């Protein structure tokens, strides 16, 4: 592979990793607070549909992003209502959300099927840095969402590990009884994290319909929501590792396209499996190394009821 091809591949990696990182960072936040939301795929789809339709009809992609935030947040609030307020089963609710999101987005987008996105995000061309040979095109000539995404993930790391709020969020995911006993409102923290997580999934979806494949197609997220769920585990619930993982998984996705055009035959099914295999391998390695400390929040997936024991 020559230099230009490699730099194009790496640039495509940055783009492909972005929607996954948005969604994974959101899911990570929710899971850190103890809420497992398997509805990521559905929330992404709704975000993608809301974002697409709103941008097309207003002509303003920033308004489109707002709509995507609202769509993802709305979906997540259903999950919150079922699992936090009503203490329903998180797995069941999340799966239902995915199915619902796929249906809702398909319904809304019916008349847009195949329509191209007319309003595009301009790519930035970072002065000076953008001119560096090789690195310039790879890192510094993308649309603002790519950078927003990295910033958000980095900010999430800071929030979780360096601030009072982070301590609060993690305590709720580890041991809600302990958090409650020191006066933390467990339900409120979990609701907030779930909704913000859903909003980020919505953004991830909108990135696909507005930038990555600027068009609307039914079920166009094509399993990226599930990759995001796997990525959270792969990253062992740490945002900084999620950044690395997102670009690794994004790179595989970019590679899949390119290999086909280059006439190299690795089964695309194998490449599609890669994120899941990598996640399993990481889980196995971690479990062997440190038995108890595999990183999952201890109360992940468990409803909290103060008067229950």
């Amino acid at each position, binding site marked *: 592979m020559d230099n230009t091809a490699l730099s194009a591949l790496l640039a495509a990696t940055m783009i492909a990793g972005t929607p996954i990182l948005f969604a994974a960072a959101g899911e990570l936040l929710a899971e850190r607070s103890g809420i497992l939301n398997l509805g990521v795929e559905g929330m992404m789809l709704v975000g993608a549909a809301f974002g697409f339709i709103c941008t097309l009809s207003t002509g303003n992609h920033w308004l489109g992003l707002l709509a995507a935030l609202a769509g993802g947040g709305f979906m997540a609030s259903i999950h919150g209502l079922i699992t936090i307020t009503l203490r329903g089963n998180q797995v069941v609710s999340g799966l239902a959300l995915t199915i619902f999101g796929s249906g809702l987005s398909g319904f809304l987008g019916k008349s847009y099927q195949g329509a191209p996105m007319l309003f595009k995000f301009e790519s930035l061309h970072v002065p000076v840095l953008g001119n560096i040979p090789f690195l310039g095109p790879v890192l510094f000539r993308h649309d603002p969402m790519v950078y927003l995404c990295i910033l958000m993930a980095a900010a999430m790391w800071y929030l979780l590990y*360096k*601030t*009072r*709020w*982070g*301590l*609060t969020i*993690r*305590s709720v995911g*580890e*041991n809600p*009884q*302990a*958090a*409650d*006993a*020191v*006066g*933390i*409102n467990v339900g409120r923290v979990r609701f907030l994290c779930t909704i913000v997580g859903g909003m980020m999934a919505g953004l991830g979806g909108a990135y696909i319909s507005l930038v990555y494949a600027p068009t609307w197609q039914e079920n166009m997220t094509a399993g990226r929501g599930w990759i995001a769920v796997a990525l959270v585990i792969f990253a062992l619930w740490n945002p900084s590792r999620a950044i690395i993982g997102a670009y690794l998984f994004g790179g595989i996705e970019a590679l899949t396209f390119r290999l086909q055009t280059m006439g190299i035959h690795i089964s695309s099914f194998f490449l599609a499996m890669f994120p899941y295999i990598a996640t399993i391998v990481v889980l196995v390695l971690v479990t062997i190394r440190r038995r*108890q*400390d595999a990183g999952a929040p*201890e109360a992940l997936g468990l409803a909290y009821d*103060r*008067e*229950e*024991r």
Partner: protein
Amino acid sequence: MNRFPVIEMKGISKRFPGVIANDNISFRVYPGEIHALLGENGAGKSTLMSILAGLYRPDSGTIKVKGEVIRLHSPRKALEEGIGMIYQHFRLVNNFTVAENIVLGSKHVNWGIKQERIQKETREISHNYGLEINPAVRVNQLSLGEQQRVEILKMLYRGCDILIMDEPTTVLTPGEVKELFQVLRIMSRQGKSIVLITHKLNEVMEIADYVTVLRRGKVVGDDRIENLDEGILTRMMVAREVVYSQAQRDSSPGGVILNVDNLKIQGDRGNIAVHEVSFNLRRGEIMAIAGVAGNGQRELVEALAGLRKAVSGSIEYEGEEIKHYDAKSRIALGINMVPEDRIGMGLVPNLSVIDNSILRSYYKEEFYSGWFLNYNKIRSYTDRIINEYNIVLSDSNHPVNYLSGGNLQKLLLGREIDQKPRVLLASYPIRGLDVAAAEGVYDLLLKERDKGTAILLVLEDLDDIFRIADRVAVMYQGFIRKILDVEKTSIDEIGSIMVGTELAGV
């Protein structure tokens, strides 16, 4: 006395499905007072204090804090009023550091958290109260005694002046109990009030200023400590005289049933938890294992029950090598265990009392009609266990975690003894039991012994060892330092071996 109470609870009632846990209770605490709250298992002590701590909402009644009626609708509200509670099961985040646990949820901390800073703050309050602890360590590496210290510091950091402690001494060594009482006295001198729930009457006599006794959700008596003694308290609690069974020393042990030779066992962290221990257990005797918690007792018992692999050595049961048998085959041989961790290892919290009662014997033909479980038969079996072992509960269809701590223990013990074991291994069988219930358990164990069962007990209270055991093996740092005849030893001797201060060669 013209002081005003800091806490005044009036007419408090609280029901749970099928039980009235608190029935029109009134309760007062004065500044600087150490107030003991006593009562049988399931009397409603933890419930009453959880209401005061804002965890449970009362169905009726009012609470005045420092003279004002306050609705304590959440732990946050209670903490704002200066009321902090340390629960029977600690509420700490295991993989946070000590300092992180202490500042968690507090508004005094800056938004950006700096480890050095919160550790410094932690060190300061821990100096002030003589509660030494390393603030940088993760809580899951601390002993239970140290974890309790973290809980107390947490409350002090928040400026609590009313501290509620639910059975704080059950997890402590005798030395740690002394230290705790020291701290409580310092706090009381500073005008802080302490409510202490406990089953140990000697502790009440030692530390309390005032005592309130509950029975079946009602206050049955309260008085200043000067007007009370252990006998009066016991009568109030159980409304009858408790007959202390004295272990008959005329036990007649039979032949050796279990012979352990050079057994070496690995701990959870890959360390060696038990080094080459050898001992034997005879039919019809009770052997106690004494030692400060964490010196290999748990690992030893688990290895004998088949829940943990032995690295080397042998376990012979009636002359047969059983080291490689799994837990189920050992149960089939008649080796039963009552684990230390009741919920989790012994009982399945969300299953009903009925289901839990047959966990060990569900496969027996007596519970089946054809291929199906016959719930009529099972129910009558459960009822028999409930009656025989005096388990207090409202409905055996409820999940087992509705039961109070003491009743859980009775259910577990009853279930195991009912298996008619030939070797019974039990860890802390009376932890958290009230006086009468503990007596009941001792009776059960002595009866079992007289029937010829070999019993190995891990005990924490040295007095208990003298009450019930025939022999005692003292463990220290994974070794059995000495096996003594209970009649020929003293509390002091065992105590000094336990902490490793016994002179070499004596």
